[in-house]
């Protein structure tokens, strides 16, 4: 699809460029969010795993990832049309016959590619919270690259490309409920089980070393998420405004419901609870952001806050050590959002969407959403397992660092650095 400069809207372009910058900013935000929660001796390793994704995935994306996700009109995966930035500056991805999608775009194709790049960067970064404090850095490097190409690009194609089978089927995902959160969440679950528990967990308490750092991250994430969700409108109009409002309301509502449960159950509303609830709401609204309206985002947020709170206790029940609760927040929250969309979706908000159960659409959309969820769970779960298994064998020392390296801290053992030096030096 040739890019016609006459169709360009400077307003839409301004908004999508800015949104791409906002989504990029989320990865440092995520790094800090996680980094504050680990113990001091692992803080840099956590930051590094996230920042490294900004480096590696950016390059892989323009080399092959974008092409595999958005090249051609295949059902299952893209092709190599955009390999190595070929034609990206002048061509949109192709629309399948009979569909008008990219041909309606008013932004330069380059910024569409870049905007999608930022999603590719942050998705695997979400996983780092689950494998915290014990994964070998070289194993992470390989996992990151392979997972991005073999898992992220195909799933992105299924859902975000108009020729992808889930897109065609009519499953909805405004900004990445399946592609980003369920995808990363199930990968986190598989990796968590394969890596095993952190030494000492759950006997020894492993409290966050620096919650203010986590709150800085929370602020950046909330801020950046406006680019993530409202930017996904790819135009600066009422739909973007709707997605913006929905994003804020779901985050707010989930914060409140999470804190309410905490208060009722444990007696204290915690700061980390406020942050966790907000992120749970942001996750859940992600697939819904441009398809729901009115007070629906509030309800979605309220539900997500409660369900994710209980989702987090799964790890204690089943005994897997999801260090920073990627599963409880992203996997559970992603599923909650994707399924609630089947109820709350409203064509009056977005004509290219569908009506959910509460708007007269029956269970049709719900069914499609379930298919998308299950497909993502199965594909990503299996692929993650295979990649990790192979790497565990191939990488010298395996996926996990030695006991001693874990004890002395990943910062020192993986990066020959420490987060904080003596104050008095």
């Amino acid at each position: 699809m040739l890019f016609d400069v006459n169709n360009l809207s400077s307003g839409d372009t301004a908004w999508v460029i800015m949104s791409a910058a906002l989504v990029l900013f989320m990865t440092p935000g995520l790094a800090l969010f996680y980094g504050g929660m680990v113990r001091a001796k692992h803080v840099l390793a956590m930051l590094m795993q996230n920042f490294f994704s900004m480096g590696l995935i950016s390059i892989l994306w323009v080399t092959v990832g974008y092409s595999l996700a958005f090249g051609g009109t295949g059902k299952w995966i893209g092709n190599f049309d955009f390999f190595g930035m070929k034609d990206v500056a002048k061509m949109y991805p192709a629309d399948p016959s009979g569909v008008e999608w990219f041909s309606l775009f008013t932004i330069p194709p380059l910024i569409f590619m870049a905007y999608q790049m930022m999603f590719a960067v942050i998705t695997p970064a979400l996983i780092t919270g689950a494998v915290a404090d014990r994964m070998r850095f070289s194993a992470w490097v390989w996992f990151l690259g392979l997972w991005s190409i073999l898992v992220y690009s195909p799933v992105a194609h299924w859902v975000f490309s108009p020729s992808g089978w889930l897109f065609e089927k009519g499953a909805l995902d405004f900004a990445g409920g399946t592609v980003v959160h369920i995808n990363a969440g199930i990968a986190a679950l598989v990796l968590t089980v394969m890596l095993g528990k952190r030494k000492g967990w759950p006997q020894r308490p492993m409290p966050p070393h620096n919650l203010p750092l986590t709150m800085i991250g929370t602020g950046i994430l909330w801020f950046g998420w406006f680019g993530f969700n409202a930017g996904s409108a790819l135009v600066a109009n009422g739909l973007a405004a709707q997605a913006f409002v929905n994003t804020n309301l779901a985050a707010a509502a989930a914060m409140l419901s999470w804190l309410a449960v905490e208060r009722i159950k444990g007696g204290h509303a915690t700061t980390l609870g406020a942050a966790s609830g907000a992120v749970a709401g942001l996750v859940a609204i992600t697939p819904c952001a441009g398809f729901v309206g009115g007070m629906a985002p509030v309800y979605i947020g309220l539900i997500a806050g409660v369900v994710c709170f209980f989702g987090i206790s799964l790890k204690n029940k089943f005994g897997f050590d999801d260090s920073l609760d990627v599963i409880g927040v992203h996997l559970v929250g992603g599923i909650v959002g994707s399924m609630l969309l089947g109820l709350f979706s409203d064509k009056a908000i977005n004509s290219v969407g569908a009506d959910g159960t509460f708007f007269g659409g029956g269970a049709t959309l719900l069914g499609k959403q379930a298919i998308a969820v299950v497909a993502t769970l199965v594909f990503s779960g299996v692929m993650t397992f295979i990649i990790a298994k192979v790497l565990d064998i191939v990488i010298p020392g395996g996926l996990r660092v030695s006991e001693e390296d874990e004890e002395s801290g990943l910062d020192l053992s993986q990066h020959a650095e420490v987060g904080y030096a003596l104050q008095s030096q």
Partner: protein
Amino acid sequence: MKLVVAIIKPFKLDDVKAAVQDLGVQGLTITEVQGYGRQRGHTEVYRGAEYTIDFVPKVKLEVLCEDGEATSIAEKIIDAARTGKIGDGKVWVVPVEGVWRIRTGEAGPDAL
């Protein structure tokens, strides 16, 4: 020479310092420590899971003094640091066999 050591509640530091200064103490050293004792710790909550933190922030004071002053310093600290609530801390005295001032090399009481 003696070393008087005290573990006190952090917010009592200023009072205690003022009190020992009144006795003519010219120097002391403090350290941020964590105490465990009868004043049990507290429950912290981390994402829905509760765990007990046994340690409470305390400040440790160390005062070098001449033999005869140790008890009066200890008593002064006890007075100034007391709130009457559990966790007020301890004071103890350790014998010291030699003291030097680095700047001058002076030894013994002159080094204080």
